[in-house]
């Protein structure tokens, strides 16, 4: 054991490769895709070929089998260039590939993981419902056993990758009387009868990621698509979210980094009162604060990843990383826009999109408020 902040050579190389890919292939089209609300299926396929969509899936199923920190590095690089692709990637890896790799039967893994690992099949996570957000246990979707099948009924909301996605981890009540112990987790493929996707949501940001409702209308899936045991659904959902918070923290770090880059570049070239505005202390101090909070956010994210890597309970630290990194990134984007002045309010400048994109990071995969409850429970031992 040691206190050691360096990356391995392998991590450095991977990061450099993804940074180059993001710079060359992702960033140039980010503004256009946002304007057109366009989900870039081709680019996502390229990311799949690079191995970015099955990073957390075991190697024997064709995945990358990488440690959480390596994954965080990748999400940061992609999100810096395009937060929409960041979430597309994070969702398929963290909340679909990861729980299937962790909780599915061997037979189920063999059926669905190779496609996901190769990047040809995108994944999603169906827990939220119109009436059930932070209070996930209050979900109304149901699943009943019928011979060799499970039949799902219900409506899921805000499902990232609904539409392009082919595999979903979905939660429904198998024993509604048992409350939160009556929730079970399933793998639902998009070709299952009775699976339907609603119209894409129009969102404030992340417009190049696809979000829609998912409907289960007597949706029939094989009995073997149960994840874990009956009644373990909430536990699986919470374990998944504990882990996935690393992805959103890393996404936030990537956005934050981009905001700092844009603000620094603008402050160097924008001249007011006869000097670049970077020479005014008010502007310099904003940059210093943004840079410091970026380091703090990244340190918390990496630390949570390293704790998770040691298979220790990273719940508190992942919650800290997610809450801190997302809020810091929101502050950074706010300041970056402020430094741009009126230009920042124009969609001609990248910072305006970033300001819209970043907003959801304090909300999805557990609001900041839920993260604080998680942290407080750890502190109080409740």
């Amino acid at each position, binding site marked *: 054991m040691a*206190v050691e*902040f360096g990356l391995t050579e392998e991590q450095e190389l991977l990061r450099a490769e993804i940074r180059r890919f993001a710079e060359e292939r992702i960033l140039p089209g980010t503004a256009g895709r946002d304007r057109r609300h366009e989900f870039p299926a081709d680019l996502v396929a390229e990311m799949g070929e690079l191995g970015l969509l099955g990073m957390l899936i075991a190697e024997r199923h064709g995945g990358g089998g990488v440690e959480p920190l390596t994954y965080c590095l990748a999400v940061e690089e992609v999100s810096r260039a395009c937060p929409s692709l960041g979430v597309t990637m994070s969702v398929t890896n963290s909340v679909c590939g990861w729980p299937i790799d962790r909780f599915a039967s061997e037979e189920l893994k063999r059926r669905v993981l190779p496609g996901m690992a190769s990047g040809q099949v995108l994944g999603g996570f169906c827990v939220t419902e119109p009436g059930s957000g932070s209070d996930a246990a209050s979900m109304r979707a149901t699943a009943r056993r019928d011979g060799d099948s499970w039949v799902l009924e219900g409506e899921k909301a805000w499902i990232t990758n609904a539409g392009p996605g082919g595999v979903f981890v979905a939660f429904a009540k198998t024993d509604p009387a048992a409350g939160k112990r009556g929730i079970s987790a399933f793998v639902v493929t998009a070709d299952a009868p009775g699976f339907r996707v609603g119209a894409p949501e129009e969102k404030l940001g992340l417009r190049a990621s696809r979000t829609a409702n998912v409907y289960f209308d007597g949706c029939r899936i094989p009995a073997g698509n149960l994840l874990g045991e009956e009644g373990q659904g909430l536990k699986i959902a919470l374990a998944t979210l504990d882990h996935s918070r690393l992805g959103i923290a890393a996404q936030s770090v990537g956005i934050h980094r981009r905001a700092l880059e844009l603000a620094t570049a603008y402050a160097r070239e924008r001249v007011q009162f006869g000097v670049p505005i970077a020479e005014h202390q008010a502007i310099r101090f904003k*940059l210093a604060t943004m840079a410091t909070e970026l*380091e703090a956010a990244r340190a918390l994210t*990496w630390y949570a990843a390293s704790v998770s890597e040691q298979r220790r309970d990273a719940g*508190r630290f992942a919650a800290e990383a997610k809450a*801190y990194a997302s809020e810091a990134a929101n502050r950074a984007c706010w300041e970056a826009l402020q430094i741009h002045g009126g230009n920042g309010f124009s969609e001609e400048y990248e910072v305006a999109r970033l300001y819209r994109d970043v907003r959801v990071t304090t909300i999805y995969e557990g609001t900041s408020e839920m993260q604080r409850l998680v942290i407080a429970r750890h502190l109080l031992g409740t």
Partner: protein
Amino acid sequence: MQIELSEEQQLLRDTVRRFAAEVVAPRAREIDASGEFPLDFFHRAGELGLAGVYVPEEYGGAGMDEVAYCVAIEEISRVCASSGVILSVNNSLVCDPLLAYGNEEQKRELLAPLASGRKLGCFALTEAEAGSDAAALRTRARRDGDRYILDGGKVFITNGTHADLALVFATVDPERKHRGITAFVVPTDAPGFSRGHHEYKLGVQASGTTQLFFEGTPVPAAWRLGEEGDGFKIAMAALDGGRVGIAAQAVGIAQGALEAALAYAKERHQFGRPISEFQAIQFYLADMAMEIDAARLLAFKAAWAKSQRKRYSLEAAQAKLFASEMAQRVTNKALQIHGGYGYTRDYAVERFFRDARITEIYEGTSEIQKLVISDWILRGA
């Protein structure tokens, strides 16, 4: 990357934690009230290796690394911030520059007693008219054969009331601005040396802050550190390291405040239940823990970089800026959780709240840290 204390560092943490609980904590409140400098604490800390944590054993230190140093300062500051800064100054601002710039004779003669805690050091840079603008200092050093003669005065010198040795920055030629600044080790029993009164402060009351005066004070040329004109560089390098120590101190103060607030929130009942059951209080506690963890990681990162002989000025400035402002917020929330009781001297949070304030000022104000950080950013670091 891995952030787990090594076995040796864990052992040090446990030892220091015990020492802090048994020796430091029982007197923390009393010396805060009286302002008495805990000289015996310093000597005992020295016996544990805490006066020169990362000084090699051959020069009287504990021979550990900068991360271990952070751990030690945090554990002491968690119960008594005055004791924390006493050690931080001796380690970072006196031992460190002697280790980095001293010649062999200076290391044996001067560093060894300081690093082993037999002698107490202080760092004399700041003057009445030279705070953040350290290069404006006016204390003069005139060469006189094989010695220098010092004239001038210093202010806000931590450990100054009891220091045996002072690392003094004086100019051999004010015209040369920072290039004239030169560092000297001055024994406090030298002729023409005197101390002012003990400053009565908002916090860190027992840290022996005072003025120092030099009136024709002779210093052997052999006790000049580095060359003439090296002083500014030596001071700035020392302060880079000092910032790691102050970041660790701020983390310790905040950790002490969080633990006090947690305990209080569990036992204090209002509206028929412990206040820890209210979301408002839970969210304060969560924010406190989150920010403390972030600050500790930044301090560790700077300390690790220093231990690897990597560039760490930026990391140290960020750690110091973040940790000190964090400590201010955290102690404020801890006091708030205590309600009216937190405003009384019956509870330690009142002291933590006062003690935290200085961490945003000494060893480079937050504003100076932001200048340092933005310089790096604009240079493309």
